[in-house]
């Protein structure tokens, strides 16, 4: 038999339900106050520093981190509840999302103490925005072809080259990036890249926004010209970023954001068909809800395994593979099911508008954070095939 796949039936503990109520009440207040419109997912790209700080005040950033860094020492499952409620409400999370999910945990693991003490509490207060600098013009899936160079200089490193597709770089305070510190070796082509913390507000960095097919400006080109990074901003071991990248990805791959990005079209479809759907609509909705429920059970299960200190790399990749394909197909399935919806349905215009946006968003879902093909390679490795 092959390595067993495990998806234990994890239940959210009772404290999560109280928390869920608090998050829903908070979001309802924010919506009532006009902070954001839950029916306008396309507004999700807009930066909202004040909302970010209020989320921090509630204690919903850095939830799982140690208290001494401003964290709250709560569980991954509690964090899960906050994340999914924000996502389903289309709340403007862009400013803090990457820092909270990904960059904070990397700093916790690899940054020197004084940097942790400086930055982590500010993430928890919702004050700082992070970006991820992995991809380059000639290095996407093949991360280890990255060329942007860090050259040793007095007290630090000089960075030259460029990153691309860098989400939020235009508003980010920091970037966690990989740069080339040595050439690859014959034995290990992954050797020679090092992870660094970059202060985006220092000189030597130009950020050029890139328009997406949705009309949004989420990602950017980032050009480095003799940008100076001090020695203590090196994260982890020199030349060994490849060892550090994999465990990080389990967090990134399996969260609710990996299947809920287009969820709003399903809600709106249910609204449009009304309380007494015909057989075709009922079956279509039933299948989609069954698939959604299953995705969520898988994703909660991975969160439970992370909580238990495991690194379910293969299971997390499976969640992302199935989840992103599901959220990518969802607007198309909803479009088919909406084909015969009465034009007089009260939300007809909203549904059409949402479908237009979701269908334009769909292609990116199986590219960002590792393509479907790359994920399947990881799963295949987990199955012992490579």
């Amino acid at each position, binding site marked *: 038999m092959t390595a067993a796949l495990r998806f234990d039936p994890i239940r959210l503990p009772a404290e999560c339900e109280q928390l869920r109520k608090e998050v829903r009440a908070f979001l309802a207040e924010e919506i009532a106050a006009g902070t954001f419109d839950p029916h306008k997912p396309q507004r999700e790209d807009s930066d909202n520093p004040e909302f970010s700080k209020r989320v921090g005040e509630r204690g919903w950033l850095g939830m799982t981190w140690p208290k001494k860094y401003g964290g709250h020492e709560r569980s991954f499952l509690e964090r899960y509840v906050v994340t999914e409620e924000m996502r389903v409400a289309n709340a403007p999370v862009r400013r803090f999302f990457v820092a909270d999910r990904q960059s904070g945990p990397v700093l916790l693991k690899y940054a020197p103490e004084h940097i942790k003490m400086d930055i982590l509490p500010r993430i928890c207060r919702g004050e700082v925005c992070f970006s991820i600098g992995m991809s380059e013009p000639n290095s996407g899936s093949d991360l280890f072809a990255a060329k942007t160079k860090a050259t040793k200089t007095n007290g630090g490193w000089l960075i030259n080259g460029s990153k691309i597709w860098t989400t939020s770089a235009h508003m980010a305070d920091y970037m966690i990036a990989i740069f080339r510190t040595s050439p690859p070796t014959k034995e290990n082509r992954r050797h020679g890249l090092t992870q660094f913390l970059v202060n985006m507000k220092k000189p030597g960095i130009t950020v050029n926004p890139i328009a997406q097919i949705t009309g949004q400006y989420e990602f950017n080109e980032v050009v480095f010209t003799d940008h100076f990074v001090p020695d203590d901003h090196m994260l982890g071991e020199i030349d060994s970023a490849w060892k550090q990248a994999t465990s990080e990805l389990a967090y990134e791959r399996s969260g609710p954001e990996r299947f809920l990005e287009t969820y709003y079209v399903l809600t709106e479809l249910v609204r449009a068909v009304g309380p007494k759907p015909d057989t075709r609509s009922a079956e279509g909705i*039933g299948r989609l809800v069954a698939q959604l429920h299953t995705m969520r059970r898988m994703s909660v299960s991975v969160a439970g395994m992370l909580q238990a200190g495991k690194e379910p790399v293969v299971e997390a990749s499976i969640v992302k593979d199935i989840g992103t394909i599901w959220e990518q197909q969802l607007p198309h399935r909803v479009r088919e099911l909406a084909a015969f919806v009465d034009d007089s349905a009260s939300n007809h215009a909203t549904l059409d508008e949402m479908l237009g946006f979701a269908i334009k968003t769909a292609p990116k879902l199986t590219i960002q954070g590792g393509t479907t093909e790359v994920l399947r390679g990881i799963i*295949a490795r987990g199955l012992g095939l490579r």
Partner: protein
Amino acid sequence: MTDADNIVAETAERIFADLADAQTINRDKNGSWKAPLWQALTDAGLPLSWVPEECDGSGTSMAEGFSVLSVAGRAGVAVPLAETMLAGWLLAQAQIKSPEGMMTVAPASPRDRLTLNADGTITGRARGVPFATDAKHIAVVASGFGGASIALVDASACRIEAGLGLADDPSDTVHFDTVKPITLQSAPSGFDQNALLLMGALVRSQQIAGALETMLGISVNYSGERVAFEKKISKFQAVQHNLAKLAGETSAALAAASSAADAFSSGAPLDDALFLEAAAAKIRCSEAAEKGAAIAHQVLGAIGFTQEHILHRYTLRALAWRDDFGSESYWAVELGKLVAARGADELWPLVASR
């Protein structure tokens, strides 16, 4: 609960390994393996796992019983273990003692209804009843004026038209022509045919997920043995990606089935959230059966399309199980209606209720 710390599942695993080797069964033409296997299962008390001791069963927990079903699904054997477990469970709902021997349940399809007549006899037709020809007894839900009743019926009192499912397992039509049951009790309040079908759907979900695990194992192993173009086929990226998709479908089936089993085992009331668990499990496991079986066959090439190879024992059974106790289309319509009736803004609270 994991299989490793579940002694009941371990017992089942051992019995199947000793007495139901897939290669041996596949070559056997006269079914001589069935009697010793059934005897061993009976000696271990497995067919009556879900029957409390006071009803002459083994009194195993719901959770342990579900894990026996995943083991049975992984083994893909043609004996009515799942059906007898389900029948015992049904009878226990009305404190009816379970007899010895093979059992099955009726109705097994939402299209059929059995009627309880005023004189206490049962009338009606139940199609697609698994293993009715092998069963000594049938556990039945019938409805009459006073609501639903649960009955134990002697199979020989019914007229049984033999049929075969996709995997050549008995799938019969059972005619109840004013049949007098051995025992008849009213069902507990709230219990009806739908509750039996839901439980049946859950049972089949466990078995499908188990069968998918075996399909994945067979396919991965084969890809490491078969050579084409001077390479193991497991080295071709297209094959790797197909197997990754099969692993994904297997994972989805496992997650949906084990979550639903866990929810039912906790003794929660049959509310919308529990309905979602069971219906979603049957829908998603059936979808996974279709996609998974197609990939497993693709990876094995022609050899997997032969009777001689064991693959069909799992692929055809998983596909056949989709039809029992309500197909995925049936449950999807029911779930879709429920979601629509609750309204758009109550969908997320339902999905996030656990």
